[in-house]
């Protein structure tokens, strides 16, 4: 890795640190991400090869963070792979934080929320149209170029497999806040709806500057959701009571989204309610979301 000057640590991820670095030859800023993927005698493991080439294919979209190169290094007899990404100055969590704290706390401009949500839908639709679910969409995994007003999807699950790990390598609890109710309830088959639920949570978070459902356990997470959207039942979500982890929960009535999120106008509320639809098969897709009237006032030609 002598090709790069490590500048600073920008992230502490699930499998390792992410560094901001500069390419010594070109001067380009990059993000270096160590993967937990090691090479063995057989060379590059087949799953790694398939996943990185998939990542490479997905990163052809400008709404997905670009994979520039893959570097391999030998260190203490181990052969490790580093992914080299284009560098973006911040992630959406840090970006929202600058509006929440700092010298001048204020809401995100509604134009920014609208534009970021649109770009998020573009990136998610790109993944879905290639047959790939992200499965871990959250503000930390969305990168932002503040000056250009660009948002890109990052951290596409290398080896995330069917289950999202509960703890990271630093034993930090992996957040449940963006997890869809069907996943929390132990559904064995899930589809693009899991990502769209997360998109809804992120939308509300941009509007509120606070996470929408901040549970600290799977049960608490469900109760947060139920308290806000009403406890689901066979009428509102056919099949819910036969999901693996379904129990009898306290009965709540749905709250008014418009009252809870006064900063969103009615089109925004309508779109959010379609993203937070209980029944995954009725949940809006990224493609349909992009056509929603909420985006009518957005100049789409710039995308």
């Amino acid at each position, binding site marked *: 890795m002598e090709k790069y000057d490590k500048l600073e640590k920008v992230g502490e991820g699930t499998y390792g640190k992410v560094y901001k670095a500069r390419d010594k030859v070109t001067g380009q800023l990059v993000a270096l991400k160590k993967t937990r993927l090691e090479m063995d005698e*057989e060379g*590059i493991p087949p799953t790694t090869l398939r996943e990185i*080439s998939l990542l*490479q294919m997905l990163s052809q979209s400008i709404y997905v963070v670009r994979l520039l190169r893959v570097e391999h290094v030998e260190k203490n007899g181990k052969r490790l792979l580093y992914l080299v990404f284009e560098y973006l100055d911040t992630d959406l969590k840090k970006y929202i934080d600058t509006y929440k704290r700092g010298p001048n706390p204020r809401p995100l401009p509604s134009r920014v929320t609208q534009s970021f949500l649109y770009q998020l839908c573009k990136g998610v639709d790109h993944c879905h149209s*290639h047959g790939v679910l992200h499965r871990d969409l959250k503000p930390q995994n969305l990168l932002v170029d503040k000056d250009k007003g660009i948002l890109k999807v990052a951290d596409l699950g290398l080896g995330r497999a069917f289950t999202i790990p509960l703890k990271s390598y630093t034993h930090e609890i992996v957040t449940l806040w963006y997890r869809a109710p069907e996943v929390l309830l132990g559904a064995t088959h899930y589809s693009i709806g899991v990502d769209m639920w997360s998109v809804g949570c992120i939308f509300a978070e941009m509007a509120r500057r606070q996470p929408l459902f901040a549970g600290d356990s799977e049960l608490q997470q469900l109760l947060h959701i139920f308290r806000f959207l009403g406890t689901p039942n066979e009428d509102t979500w056919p099949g819910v009571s036969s999901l693996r982890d379904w129990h009898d929960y306290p009965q709540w009535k749905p709250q008014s989204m418009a009252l809870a999120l006064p900063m969103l106008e009615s089109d925004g509320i309508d779109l959010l309610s379609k993203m937070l639809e209980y029944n995954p098969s009725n949940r809006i897709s990224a493609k349909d979301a992009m056509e929603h009237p909420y985006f009518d006032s957005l100049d789409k030609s710039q995308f």
Partner: protein
Amino acid sequence: MEFDFDLENPFSGSDEQNIQLSKALFIGSTDSDEPSLLFSAESDHMSSLAVALDQLSTRCHALSLIVQAQFSNNLDPALAYLAVNYIDRFLAKREIPNEKPWIARLLAISCLSLASKMKKTSFSPADLQREEGFIFDARTIRRMELLVLGVLEWRMRSITPFSFLRFFTSYFPLANPIIIQSLKTHASQILFKSQNDVKSLEFKPSVIAAAALLAAARELFPAHFLSFRTALLCCEYLNKESLAECCAAMESYDTTAGIEAASNGCDSAYSALTPVTVLDRHRAGLESEKTAGSASNG
């Protein structure tokens, strides 16, 4: 996640959880985004003829090894096809010195190994090498694999003519699934054979796919050939002149000669090499290649 690579569906993650989705995508794919995605990406996956011509003999050696491997190990033709695609794309970007024929072998073995990893087949370079009688060590193959990955920029989900078959069959006047399947099967055979022809590098994958389907239709369903051709000529993604040229090239191409031509046509200097001399050259070569090799080691 298992992202097994399927030539016909380069864009499908075929993630088990996503099967539902992929099905939705590829059945009736004409009204999804997929065709435009494919057509806009295909030029990234071409190997230019100009460069390839300089390296004809390298290509020839590498392909003959692939053909031998395919027959002696009874490999899936799609696997061999993918390996040759990698070889062509590699040669379009990197020159291989003619006086080092062992590199062609190493390239062939590495590409075959990469293709089998992409397709999740259990082929190991060792199987092939045992038969060939000389052995590159695991480290050498590993390094070559990484070199190939670097040169191809890890774009291993190649867009090939196979990726376009499904799309173009939707232009066929009959929609009977059995007929469409036989058309596709026949066109696939034509594609497998035409890959050896260096002329095929001249055309875009989509154009080759359309030409192969036309050739298949002419043989199997001559009564519908003309209306199929008319329909294809109206396809917004296809260049008419290019399609005509490709059809002509495919007709002039003797499909029975393909395999033999690939295995016998290479220059004889190479075949005179014994395994021992190849291994010696290989060692000597590695010494002098050290700098080139380590450059890819990050």
